[in-house]
């Protein structure tokens, strides 16, 4: 099979390309770290390649993989014009092995090529300890500035160890707390960029009514005009990636629920799809349709949360729409509760299908929802779409052009509102989305109002998909018959020895995927959710990378809020639609 990307790279940079590996149709091209910058520019600009979207940057500590050198940074690239993906890997030697104890492995920053690399590289630096030369502001992003160590390294212990902060540990005042001392809140790390003398610097958050959780925005104001607005994240960081490395594949599914906790089904689906691809499991059609229905319901529910909170942000805390939108989200959560017993932390999808069969009343209750919901959307639209106050608050606010959005790695409704009809459900269909007939709503204005319109239109499309899904659903097995990943049915265990063995093996050991790596992506309500999995053949992932769309999208806040007014910040943050659980992971 010819591989255009590899061939072109090999032809242009014969000494930079070190190798190529293909696993489950995903190509990894190994590139010499010293020439990464040249290669990146070529990948982005070559008209036949045009890898304009950098999905993710993450580091891998390959200590236990037997690979040399120890570290590697991976770049997940996506070419929107050519609908193609590639992964670039740049191995990095660990200077500590040569006796330089305090030196971090270093590589060129690609911030100049893809703007989105800014935060992603900061995160890699923070958690993996890889230095990016030429990065505009290389500071820790998720962990406190004075944290000791880089948690995603394999030599960083997990569980039971004291929390290491350099400050206050010797202060007798805190002796009773042992070593678990949280540092005093740091002054915003990027304040040094701000003119705190000439301008008014306001700290919005982490306790602030409009920041949707523990987000902190340092805002530099000239009167009411915003000079710059720097988000600071990490207050909710809980080390998902490190946790994932010590859990079996199946057991990480409940953790996905805690990422973007208002679209749990979508998170589950993205993860489960990645593991299924890794295990090469086929999912029965019935389960695939059921997944599509549930994920689209989840999209509606997530958009309801967005609509309610956005209206509340723009209006006031008691704007009626919040409760109306949440009422209809409740209807969806009721369906979820019926399906799996949980309203928010569903964990309903399992590798190979659904965890349990759909309940008998499922189709009726979804139909019932579909019957009532269109009227409600019309209500919302009459309340907002042509409301002059709503329009003046949103129109022209937080403009993010398609070019800027792609540069910043922004995906989802934000990108579609800038005129790019990029939706993974169409571009690279998964879970039988290719069998559904639906449109991708886009808008061209690229402002908050366009995003509002796009999301409202997506509600209609989701309903169309659900209707088709109900028609297709039919009856069938809800789980794959592949006993290597899915538990056998209870009846079979009492009659079949083989089933009993499978059951025993699955429960005690879990399944062991082949050695390999992949990066599964899916279109979440907020953008592209990515799960990078590196398998070393054991039952636990060797490295589990999570790309939260909110995290990447939030990076655009500064650009969108600049030169607006203070009030526009809440509009902008509301229209990005972030969930802090996913931002901080």
């Amino acid at each position, binding site marked *: 099979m010819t591989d255009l990307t590899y061939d072109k790279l090999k032809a242009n940079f014969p000494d930079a390309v070190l190798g190529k590996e293909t696993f489950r149709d995903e190509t990894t091209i190994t590139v010499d770290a010293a020439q990464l910058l040249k290669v990146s520019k070529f990948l982005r600009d070559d008209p036949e390649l045009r890898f304009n979207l950098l999905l993710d940057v993450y580091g891998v500590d390959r200590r236990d993989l037997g690979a040399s050198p120890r570290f590697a940074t991976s770049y997940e690239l996506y070419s929107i014009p050519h609908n193609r993906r590639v992964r670039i890997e740049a191995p990095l030697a660990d200077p500590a092995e040569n006796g330089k104890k305090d030196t971090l492995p270093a590589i060129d920053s690609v911030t100049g090529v893809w703007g989105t690399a800014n935060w992603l590289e900061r995160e890699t630096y923070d958690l993996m300890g890889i230095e990016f030369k030429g990065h505009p502001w290389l500071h820790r992003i998720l962990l406190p500035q004075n944290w000791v160590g880089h948690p995603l390294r394999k030599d960083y212990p997990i569980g039971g160890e004291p929390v290491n902060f350099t400050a206050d540990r010797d202060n007798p005042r805190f002796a009773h707390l042992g070593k678990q001392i949280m540092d005093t809140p740091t002054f915003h790390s990027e304040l040094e960029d701000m003119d705190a003398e000439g301008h008014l610097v306001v700290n919005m958050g982490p306790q602030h009514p409009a920041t949707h959780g523990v987000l902190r925005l340092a805002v530099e104001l000239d009167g*009411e005009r915003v000079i710059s607005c720097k988000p600071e994240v990490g207050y909710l960081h809980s080390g998902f990636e490190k946790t994932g490395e010590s859990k079996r594949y199946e057991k990480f599914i409940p953790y996905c629920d805690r990422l973007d906790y208002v679209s749990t089904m979508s998170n589950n689906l993205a993860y489960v799809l990645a593991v299924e691809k890794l295990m090469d499991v086929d999912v029965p059609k019935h389960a695939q349709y059921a997944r599509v229905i549930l994920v689209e319901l989840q999209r509606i529910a997530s958009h309801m949360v967005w609509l309610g909170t956005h209206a509340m942000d723009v209006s*006031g805390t008691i704007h*009626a729409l*919040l409760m109306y939108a949440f009422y209809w989200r409740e209807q969806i959560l009721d369906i979820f509760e019926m399906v799996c017993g949980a309203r928010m932390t569903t964990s309903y999808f399992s590798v190979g299908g659904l965890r349990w069969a759909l309940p008998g009343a499922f189709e009726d209750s979804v139909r019932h929802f579909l019957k009532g919901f269109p009227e409600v959307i019309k209500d919302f639209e009459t309340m907002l779409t042509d409301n002059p106050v709503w329009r003046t608050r949103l129109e022209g606010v937080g403009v993010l052009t398609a070019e800027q959005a792609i540069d910043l790695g922004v995906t989802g409704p934000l990108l579609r509102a800038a005129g790019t009809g990029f939706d993974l459900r169409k571009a690279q269909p998964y879970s039988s989305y290719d069998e559904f007939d639906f449109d991708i709503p886009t808008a061209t204005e690229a402002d908050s109002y366009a995003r509002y319109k796009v999301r409202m239109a997506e509600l209609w499309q989701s309903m169309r998909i659900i209707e088709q899904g109900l028609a297709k659903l039919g009856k069938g097995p809800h789980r794959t018959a592949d006993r290597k990943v899915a538990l056998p049915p209870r009846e079979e265990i009492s009659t079949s020895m083989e089933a009993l063995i499978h059951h025993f093996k699955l429960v005690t050991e879990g399944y062991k995927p082949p050695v390999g790596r992949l990066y599964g992506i899916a279109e979440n309500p907020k953008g592209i959710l990515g799960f990078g999995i590196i398998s070393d053949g054991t039952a636990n992932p060797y490295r589990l990378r999570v790309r939260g769309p909110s995290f990447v999208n939030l990076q655009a806040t500064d650009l969108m809020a600049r030169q607006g007014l*203070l*009030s526009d910040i809440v509009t902008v943050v509301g229209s990005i639609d972030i969930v802090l659980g996913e931002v901080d992971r």
Partner: protein
Amino acid sequence: MDWIQTLLIPIVYSTILVVILLTGFAYLSYVERKLVARFTMRFGPNRAGPFGLLQPLADALKMMFKEELSPKNADLPVYLLAPFLAISTAVIGWAVFPFASRGFSVLGYSVPPVLADVNIGLLYVAAVTSIGSYAVVLAGWSSNNKYSLLGALRAGAQMVSYELPLGLTLVAVILVVGSMNMTEIIQYQLDHTWLIVLQPFAAIIFFIAGLAESNRSPFDLPETENELVSGYITEYGGIRFAAFFMGEYIHMITFGAIISILFLGGWSGPGADAVPFLGLVYFILKIALMIFMMIWVRASVPRVRYDQLMRFCWKFLMPLALLNLVVTAIVIAL
């Protein structure tokens, strides 16, 4: 015993008025919470007492027993004065509002339907209610907080701007009636018809500008909880916070009363001439209607942005009010 007529009766009168207004505030907060709850598919307060009727009492008690904190570098005298300026300016406007067609007599002393029947009543009301903006500005300035300061800046600009269309509509009313005396304004409406019919534009402008003047949504920019946490009241707690709240709600009642007197005929209504008590009921009902509308707007209209608010005032409301004034003047001159 002339001092009873000139001193004691006004004192008792105003004491009763203040007590009624303060209780009215408490139950207005209950009504607002209840109404907004119904607008948003909730129940509202329903735990304290039957239908939650004791909720205002519980709130007041809670507020009173809260620790009084003040910011370290606050300008203390101003910081302490501001909340009470807010209440008092809202209350003293009530001196000139007529409540019924005629008063009644107790033990040979006459109790008038209006505390002070001054012939510049309208001017007086406009003057004292606008002092209310000082409370907001002073509070925001003195609390030494960035959010409060931004709130105060907004409040200053907003209230001064909206005074103008407000004042211009008042001038139109004065032109029509030919008097600034509240009683005469009502008498004029009794003789002719309600001024909302004669001056519909003035009524609408007055309502909108009044929302801005009394810091009500969608013009509640000085406190915008979504941007400025609580704006000028961020640093206030306990009873001082309650005082601001009182000021705001009494301002709402006052505003409802002004608009009822100016445009809805005050106490007038069927049978109000014969039975003065009925006039009081009509007056209260009209105020209640205005307050209901203000609450309704709050629950359903998004908040405008600061610059849009100013643009709306100067580029739309002001010219409209001026035009209304000119047309009124020409019509009257003819």
